[in-house]
Each structure stands twice: as structure tokens, then as C-alpha cells.
């Protein structure tokens, strides 16, 4: 039985900032790659803010789940992945999507229900996907993507490919039967899959203390004979390191890893949240641990970027999101004539 690996952990469940070993990510990724990661964090942040603005101005529809505060978790986990690695995502999926390399233009158009969006306006915020580039989609069903990632990993293994599948899900998802069944199957079949639980302390209004029978989601790894790793989810570098270790395991045929990313969402659960279940102090204490500033500090401290670089990156991201919003605004709505056209795959008649 591999024991749960607590990288480091304070009594609050929030890990201290530095893992014990020198981070591997700094030696693996070039300065350019790390700066691209920073850019993605800014893209996520601005995307979410733009989404929020659109909602406040009554321009969008439906619900949305913003990942502001969780950017490091998404970007760090996806940093080691290539385009042929798969991810599955969640209702809170914009960040994962951008981290996996999606085009914010097509995302914002999808978010706005436009024909030019990733899903031609069929899916919306909760269903943005880009299967060709390994993003098997956000998911409106809590834990719905976990077994799907296991299936992708099974397909990878069957075809002898050097890839992995990585499944993002929340702390709330860890109480779904789908989590249990999927982790058991992944373990017995030793599949190249990485489970990344983004524990932001709440499932909607329900705190982990009231819903989860263990202190850490990673404590459940032992029930599936896989390593359970707790990571500071607000650190890009720690997340990337943990995922690289899990990829090594997967590539060696040793099977899955459960990574618990301790993080926090700074916005409400969804647009209808009145924040009755947590304190302003708690929110502010986490706001002070902002993952973007944190990563900028890391980059500057390691001489990989200057403060001016960071500003330039932020501005580029802001411009890109502004362009994405413009693209979306300029885009046409879907045509009702095509309502039924994507239900089934058109089939050529077999001779």
C-alpha cells in the first residue's frame, strides 16, 4: 500500500508554500514555456472577469462557475501535458480549457451561445470541449468526467500510446459513486490516468467538514492502492511537479495517482450564490494567496522573468480576451433550422 504523500500541510489543511525537494518544473520547462503558463493564468482570470461582466450586463444566459483563484491548479496540472494527452473537466471548466490550450475566442463565443463557439452554441459554459486537442469536455454532472477519463486512459493503454488522461474534479465529486467506481477500475487495470481533485473546501455551500468523511480527499487513495498526494493548488510549480511524478508512474505502467490540489474559489459557486456559508475573513485570507502574484514571484525570484515581462504578459492576455469578447459579439447566433443536425452522426449508406 503506498501511503498518502503529504507534501507539506498546515493544520488548516493549507499546505505551506514550498515542497521539500527543489522543484523539477524549473529544470524541465523553459522560461518561454513558463511565461506561456503565466499568460494562461492571466487569460483565465480575464476570461472569467469578462464572463462575469457579460452576466452583470445581462448579456449572457444560463449559469456559470468561475475559477478565479484556482488558476494555478489548472495551469500547473496541464503544463506537463501534450496535445495528445486527454483531460476531462467540470462545471467549473473555463480554466482547465484554457490551460489545455483552447482558443479563448471560440470559448467566449460558446459561452455566449454563438454559432462560432466551440460547440456552435449547443453546449455553453458547462460543455466546452475540444476533443481533437485532447479536451474531452467540461461536464455538467459532478464526477461525470471521472470514469470518462478512465476510459480514455484505457484506450491509450490498448493502443500502446505514450499518453495519459487527467481528470479534474472537485472535492464534492469525491462523494459520488462514480469517483469510487472509476478509481477502483483505474487501479486494478493500472491505467495511465491522473486524478486531480481541486479541493476548494466547498461543494456549492457544503463544506468538506460536513460532507467528506476524511480530512483530505487524498486520504482515500489508500482505498484504491494508489498514491495520494496533497499539493498546494495555488502553486503552478507544485502542481506541475505532482503531475509529472504521476505521469512517470503512468508511463511506467504503474497506474493512477490521486492528486489533491488545495485551492479556493474567490467568487461564489455560481451566479446565484449569496455566500451564506463562508466568512469574509476566509475569502480574504485566500485572496491574499493569489496564485498569479505567487507565480510571478516564483518566476522573478528564479530570474525567469522580470516585472516588466509580467506586465507585458498581463496586457497581452487582456488584449486577447478583449478580442475574444469582440469576436463573440460580432458572431452570429446559431440558426434554428439546424437544431437537429448534430444529434446523430450523418452516416454514409454502406453498400
Amino acid at each position: 500500500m503506498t501511503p498518502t504523500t503529504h507534501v507539506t500541510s498546515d493544520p488548516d489543511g493549507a499546505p505551506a508554500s514550498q515542497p521539500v525537494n527543489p522543484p523539477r518544473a524549473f529544470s524541465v520547462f523553459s522560461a518561454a514555456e513558463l511565461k506561456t503558463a503565466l499568460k494562461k493564468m492571466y487569460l483565465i482570470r480575464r476570461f472569467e472577469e469578462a464572463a462575469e461582466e457579460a452576466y452583470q450586463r445581462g448579456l449572457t444566459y444560463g449559469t456559470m462557475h468561475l475559477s478565479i483563484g484556482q488558476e494555478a491548479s489548472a495551469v500547473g496540472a496541464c503544463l506537463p501535458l501534450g496535445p495528445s494527452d486527454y483531460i476531462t473537466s467540470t462545471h467549473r471548466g473555463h480554466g482547465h480549457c484554457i490551460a489545455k490550450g483552447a482558443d479563448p475566442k471560440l470559448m467566449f463565443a460558446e459561452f455566449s451561445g454563438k454559432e462560432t463557439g466551440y460547440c456552435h452554441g449547443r453546449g455553453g459554459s458547462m460543455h466546452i470541449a475540444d476533443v481533437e486537442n485532447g479536451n474531452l469536455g467540461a461536464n455538467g454532472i459532478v464526477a461525470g468526467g471521472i470514469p470518462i477519463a478512465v476510459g480514455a486512459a484505457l484506450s491509450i493503454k490498448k493502443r500502446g500510446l505514450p499518453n495519459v488522461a487527467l481528470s479534474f474534479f472537485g472535492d464534492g465529486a469525491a462523494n459520488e459513486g462514480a469517483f469510487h467506481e472509476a478509481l477502483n477500475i483505474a487501479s486494478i487495470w493500472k491505467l495511465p490516468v491522473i486524478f486531480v481533485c481541486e479541493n476548494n473546501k466547498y461543494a456549492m455551500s457544503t463544506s468538506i467538514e460536513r460532507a467528506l468523511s476524511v480530512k483530505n480527499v487524498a486520504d482515500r487513495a489508500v482505498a484504491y492502492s494508489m498514491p495520494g498526494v496533497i499539493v498546494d493548488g495555488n502553486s503552478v510549480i507544485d502542481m506541475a511537479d505532482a503531475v509529472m511524478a504521476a505521469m512517470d508512474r503512468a508511463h511506467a505502467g504503474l497506474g493512477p495517482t490521486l492528486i489533491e490540489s488545495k485551492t479556493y474559489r474567490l467568487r461564489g459557486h455560481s451566479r446565484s450564490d449569496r455566500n451564506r456559508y463562508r466568512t469574509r475573513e476566509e475569502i480574504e485570507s485566500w485572496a491574499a494567496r493569489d496564485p498569479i502574484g505567487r507565480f510571478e514571484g516564483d518566476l522573478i525570484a528564479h530570474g525567469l522573468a522580470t516585472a516588466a515581462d509580467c506586465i507585458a504578459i498581463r496586457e497581452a492576455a487582456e488584449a486577447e480576451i478583449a478580442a475574444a469578447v469582440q469576436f463573440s459579439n460580432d458572431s452570429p447566433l446559431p440558426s434554428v433550422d439546424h437544431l437537429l443536425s448534430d444529434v446523430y452522426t450523418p452516416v454514409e449508406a454502406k453498400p
Partner: protein
Amino acid sequence: MTAPLSATTGALPVDPTATRELSFAEALREALGQALEADERVFLMGEDIAIYGGAFQVTLGLLERFGHDRVMDTPISELGSAGVAVGAALAGSRPILEFQFQDFATLAMEQIVNQAAKIRFMFGGKCSVPVVFRAPTGSGTGGAAQHSQSLEAWYAHVPGLKVVQPSNPYDAKGLLLAALDDPDPVMFFEHKLLYKVKGHVPEAPYRVPIGKAAIARPGTHLTIVASAIMVSRSLEAAKELAEKGIDVEVIDLRTLRPLDTETIIASVKKTTRLMCVYEGVKTLGIGAEISAMIAESDAFDYLDAPILRLGGAESPIPYSPILEKAAVPQVADIVAAAERLAKKRV
């Protein structure tokens, strides 16, 4: 929303001068509060129903009144929660489980359909499973394909279940209290677009009997059978149609299982034309049953035109509002279809 028009349709007599108005959600909340007060066996379970007050705020404030023992937040565990409700009901409690969206009850079908619905029968009638499963249904809020379904027909296909779907605040309260009295498992579906709709609701507890449809509007030329949000849409259509000289009778099903076949048959015999309006996917939606029931009844002989179904599109519910609207019947669709039907002759 109109309260039922006649005592023969199953509603208790309503004081016509009463004007106390509640929203659909408030009416449900009042029913839940009264049930919790009246019967200590009753308790509520569901995701985020306590502190948050439920995704649609139906249970807002009940935690404060009744405490965490009676208003219980569950983990996100639909199957487990449904099983817990079934077990508690078997052991003598009266659980009411809220699914946050009907779509998530797909995770609990095993417990609902294999256990709750069948236990009484399998055990030879020696016990009952008095549990109420509540769930918001339907499209119109931009929830997209996994948060907008109307799968009521599934449950109406299952013997052992009762399936209730109110269309207005008055019925919401009365049917929920009736569901709580019922010794058997009741699926209670609440259309999301109705939650904020207001209507007259008496304060004292009352019951609207399960299994009785209401004639929401009497008419002579054509019968529309509908439920939930489609009742108000049909009533609105009926107004337009009246201006065009077509006098529509609108039947509010209220209960999808057991169906009030009597009321529907009587109406069809009177009007000789039948149209079923429903949000669920057209194929095998509730309108299929109503149509088939009429086509094998003696009302068949009275029909002056084919039976028309106006159901949901043969697609998942799309996200984009323009598509979402196109996927389910709207007032204009009902008007157009009714006009066509009124002209048709066999």
C-alpha cells in the same frame, strides 16, 4: 396561473374573495414548513437545501426554523441519498429528498425504480415506502443539455410510483401536502420557470388530490392536455385562439401517474379534437400515452381529427437561447398547431 375552476375537478373549495398571493416556490416552502411542523417523522434531505436554501431557494429559511436534524444537507451522492430516503421511509420516517436538478436523478434511478417503486409489491404488500422525491425540471434557464431535461415520462412508465407535476402555486402546495400524506413513493416535479410565478394560495394546509386533473379553461372546440409550464402557455394560446374563434378547453394533468383518464375522455367526447402539449421529448413523452389512451378508448369514435402532439424536439436541450426556445413548444407554436388541428377533418 388560475386556481382550479370547479370542485368536480378535485380541488377543495376556494374562497373566491381570497387574495393571498405566493410564488410557486413560496407555496412549496409553506407546504414543507407545515409538514415539518405537523409531523415529526417528516424531514428534508438534499444537496445545499439547508444553508443555501436549495438551488432554487425552495427550502430557504427552513433550516433556521427546524434545525439541521430536520433539514439535512447531503453530500453529492444522489444514489446513496435516495437509498437512505428509502430506508428511512421503510423504518417509519417520512423523508422528502430534493434532487438539485431532475437530470441528476438519473444517478438514482436504481433506488427509485428498483427499490422504492417495487418494494411494496415485491414484499407482498406488507409495507409501504412513503418517500417524496422532489426535483426541478425543464428548460428555459440556459442550463443546457444536462440541466434542462423533462424525463417525467420515464417515471410515469413505472408502476409503483406516482408522478405529480403542478402548474401553479395553489396546486404546488396542495399536491405537495397530498404527496406527503401518500403512503407510496411520489415523484414531485417542479418546473423551474414556475418558481417565481405568483398565485393565490390559502395559508391553512389543504390537499389537492393526486390523480385528478383540472379543467384549467373550459372550451368546446378542441381539448389541449398539458402540465406544468405548458398549462400557462396553453392558456395564453387559448386566449389568442378565442380571438380567432377557436374555443379551447385546457386540461391541467397535475398528475402523470395515475392519469385521470376520465376527465380527458370526457373532454375529448365534448370537443372531438385533442392536442397534447408537453415539454418532454415528443417520442414517448407523456403525450404519447394520452394519445394512445384516447385512441383505444370509446372517445376514439368521437374524434373529428387526428390527435396532435406538440412535444419537445428530438434533440437534447441546447444552450443558446434561440435554440433552446426552438426546442420546446412556445405559445406561438401552440396557437399555430391548434389552428391547424381545428381545421382538420377526418
